[in-house]
């Protein structure tokens, strides 16, 4: 096995082993040493990923990607389900981000989850999650990716509902899983349809239904399908898009992400900021060769992303819970990613779109994780109180967290020269490019406006949250008790690493063109030089600064009693009533149907079962009446038998 194959397999296998060891430890009820195997395995995985990032040379292989052979997982009826890893630059980009951030957050978790009874279980599921995520990123086959898609969903469910005895946590976990399930059903239909369609091309004709879904086969086959059955491909694209949207919490499916904040904060940082929710973006990026042939899908994606980012930003403005603000912020930023990907609808812009999306994904991972961990510090210090109305002016109590949160918030707001500025600029730049296209440019013009408004709102709510939490009159809630001190070093160190990343990654990768060069080495993406126009840079800087000022102003104001604003505030606080709508339209009819079925099951099926079960008793009772225990009746029956036999003999015998 060559070097890169070893590294490639090391990346997922190390967390898997860590997961198993921690699972064993959790059965033994360990609460002290479980972090050791977890952190060790995650560090190994991160090192292997980063090593591959720097060493793997895309030009060395003729196909532009490498395959690390795995083993045959299952053979069903002649179909081989092979676990093979596909490595190309796109995958390596995300992989190194995922693994390194996971390692950082694991180190942070050691401090945060200290003395929790489910300590070992936490790390077991954590490592399991990282295993599934890395396998998802590394998978060479769409169906295999779907399997690990479900895997990350399951680990997310387990982690959101980590404190499962709390009813709200259990409900949130179920909600996340169910909403994802709905999206994944569409995803599965898309996969099946694609496999079926590929079967009719010459490329896929000779292959079984699993091998047809290899990414390489898909990429080879889709031009053929597009030329003959364009509508089919569009349908497939829509279905796959729904899957991506579900996982990445975009407009119709975004309802699960804010509730997912019931889980521990490091979980929110890892899964719902940096890694899992990016899986949807990664899927769309991976299937770029497919989606370039279906522009309508991309335009839909872009609009959904735009709508999501706008409404999420509005909702974030009116939340009181710090983590919820960050959750909506994540949703909003993911909307940006989808907007960027959507610009691939314009001819020749696909590469730039993917580059922009991946760039913003990377930087967003860093600063969002940093923000979440800071919120975790605040929560830890305030005794699990996270409602911003309960505390304020914490810069004296939590000085280092103050600085780290400020860095993250500035990056998120797009303050010039921090990483968020460059990556957001990249997104807005590609949308601006797309808006000049003749056919679909009008969509992107509107989306550009949406992007600017969202950028303003982002800066506003971020700075509002920052100023509300750390500045102003110092107020500490009673529940904090003796917790109200700065976090320990083990929690601050990874945050520092992430802060460094949040600051420099943008500058290092964006303007230098490194990331665009790197990602373009992915097969079927062509290198494309792209520079953002100057007016865009200036505009976004101004927007960022304006937003920060507005946020500062909002944080100082007491809640206004103005009628219109209050109504908007109520609307935003209740999440635009989307959850309420879902409850009415979907959940209640389901409950009604389930009540009906329960009635049927108890009254009809149950009654039949009871009747059948009662039948032996009835038969027994009928037969019981013969046994009177009295000799006359028994002898009478005997006499009847004798008489019957005698008559039978007499009438039948031939003398």
């Amino acid at each position, binding site marked *: 096995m060559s070097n890169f194959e070893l590294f490639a397999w090391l990346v997922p296998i190390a967390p898997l082993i860590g997961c198993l060891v921690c699972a064993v430890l959790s059965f033994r009820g360990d609460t002290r040493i479980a972090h050791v195997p977890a952190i060790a395995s995650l560090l190994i995985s991160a090192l292997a990923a980063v090593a591959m990032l720097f060493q793997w040379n895309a030009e060395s292989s003729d196909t532009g990607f490498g395959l690390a052979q795995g083993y045959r997982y299952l053979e069903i009826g002649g179909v081989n389900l092979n676990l093979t890893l596909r490595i190309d630059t796109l995958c390596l980009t995300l992989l190194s981000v995922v693994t390194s951030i996971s390692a950082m957050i694991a180190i942070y978790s050691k401090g945060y989850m200290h003395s929790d009874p489910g300590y070992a279980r936490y790390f077991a599921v954590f490592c399991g999650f990282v295993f599934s995520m890395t396998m998802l990123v590394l998978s060479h086959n769409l169906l295999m990716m779907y399997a690990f898609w479900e895997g990350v969903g399951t680990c997310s469910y387990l982690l959101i509902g980590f404190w499962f005895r709390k009813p709200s946590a259990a409900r949130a976990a179920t909600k996340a899983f169910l909403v994802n399930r709905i999206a994944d059903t569409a995803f599965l239909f898309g996969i099946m349809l694609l496999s079926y369609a590929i079967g009719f091309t010459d490329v896929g004709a000779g292959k079984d239904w699993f091998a047809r879904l290899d990414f390489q086969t898909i990429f080879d086959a889709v031009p053929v399908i597009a030329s003959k059955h364009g509508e089919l491909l569009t349908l497939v694209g829509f279905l796959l898009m729904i899957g991506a949207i579900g996982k990445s919490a975009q407009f119709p499916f975004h309802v699960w992400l804010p509730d997912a904040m019931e889980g521990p904060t490091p979980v929110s940082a890892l899964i719902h900021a940096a890694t899992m929710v990016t899986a949807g973006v990664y899927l769309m990026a991976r299937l770029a060769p497919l989606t370039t042939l279906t522009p309508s899908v991309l335009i839909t994606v872009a609009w959904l992303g735009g709508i999501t980012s706008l409404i999420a930003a509005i909702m974030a403005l009116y939340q009181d819970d710090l983590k919820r603000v960050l959750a909506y912020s994540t949703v909003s930023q993911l909307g940006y990613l989808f907007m960027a990907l959507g610009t691939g609808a314009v001819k020749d812009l696909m590469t730039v779109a993917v580059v922009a999306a991946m760039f913003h994904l990377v930087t967003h991972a860093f600063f969002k994780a940093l923000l979440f961990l800071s919120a975790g510090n605040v929560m830890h210090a305030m005794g699990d109180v996270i409602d911003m109305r309960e505390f304020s002016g914490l810069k004296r109590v939590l000085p280092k967290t103050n600085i780290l949160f400020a860095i993250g918030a500035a990056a998120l707001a797009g303050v010039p020269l921090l990483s968020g500025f460059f990556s957001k600029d990249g997104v807005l730049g590609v949308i601006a490019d797309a808006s000049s296209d003749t056919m679909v440019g009008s969509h992107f013009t509107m989306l550009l406006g949406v992007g600017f408004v969202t950028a303003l709102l982002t800066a506003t709510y971020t700075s509002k949250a920052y100023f509300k939490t750390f500045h102003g009159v110092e107020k500490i809630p009673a529940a904090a008790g003796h917790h109200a001190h700065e976090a320990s070093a083990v929690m601050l160190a990874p945050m520092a690493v992430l802060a460094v990343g949040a600051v420099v990654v943008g500058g290092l990768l964006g303007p230098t063109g490194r990331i665009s060069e790197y990602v373009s080495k992915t097969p079927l993406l062509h290198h494309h030089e792209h520079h953002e126009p100057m007016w865009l840079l200036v505009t976004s800087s101004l927007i960022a600064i304006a937003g920060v000022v507005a946020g500062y102003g909002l944080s100082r104001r007491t809640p206004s009693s103005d009628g219109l604003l209050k109504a908007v505030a109520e609307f935003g606080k209740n999440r635009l009533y989307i959850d309420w709508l879902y409850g009415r339209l979907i959940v209640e009819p389901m409950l009604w149907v389930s009540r009906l079925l329960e009635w049927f099951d108890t009254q009809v099926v149950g009654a039949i079962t009871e009747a059948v079960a009662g039948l032996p008793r009835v038969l027994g009772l009928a037969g019981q009446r013969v046994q009177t225990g009295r000799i006359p009746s028994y002898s*009478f029956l005997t006499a009847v038998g004798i008489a019957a036999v005698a008559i039978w003999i007499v009438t039948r015998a031939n*003398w």
Partner: protein
Amino acid sequence: MNPFTIDPNRLPLVTGEQIPGTMSQLMLLVILLGAVSYLLLQHGVLKSKLIAAAGMGVFALAAALAVSLVPGQLDAVVRMCFSLLAVGGGLAFITAREPVHAALGFATAVLSTCGVLFMQSAYFIAAATMIVYAGATIIIFLFVLMFAQKSKLRTYDVELSHPIVATVVATALMFAIAWSVASPGEILPIKLDLTRPYSLAVPGEDPGKQMPPMPSTATSAEEYAAFVPSKTSGLGRSMFTDYLLAIELAGTVLLVATIGAIVLAQRTERDAT
């Protein structure tokens, strides 16, 4: 070579001839009337003795008619009297209210049956039946009745359990018997039973296998055809030669029954009376 040849003309029953099924309708009527009269005799079924007596009269008339169809030889008449007495005794036995009356009816029935047996030349069996049934059995029953019967009539003496159904079943059985008796089909020829060689002298055989001939032994086909098994000595001989094992076993059963009766009737410690 079989020295015995059966002369069909000397045999009372013609071989190979089909006896046509002539179940006399009168037989049927007699059976039915008997069943009905039995039911009517139940205490409480008919309040009026007049109707019961009328019914009995009709039955008697039917029986007399049946009797009148029988050829009027003396032994037939005597046999018919004995039969009627036996049936009457049986009916009295099953309809009587007092148990002692029932025992008397039983004795009458048994004695009449013995009379019929005497007429069939089964003298020993008749005597033994008289001694065992009408003698020993009745006496034992009367002894038990003596200590077990209350002075007044009890419910269980008078009340019958499902009389109508029992009568129906017995009537059905009687129909079957009457039908099979009335239509026997082909009567098989009477064979000299050579499986039991000892009670018959077999002339011409090895002298070691011969038994001294007795007056009742049939030694030829003609004698066999005219043979009537009436001699007790012949019965005894047949018992202890052909059926020795059966008789010995019967004796053993009697011994066991004796021991059993003693053991069962013993007063155990629990029955502290």
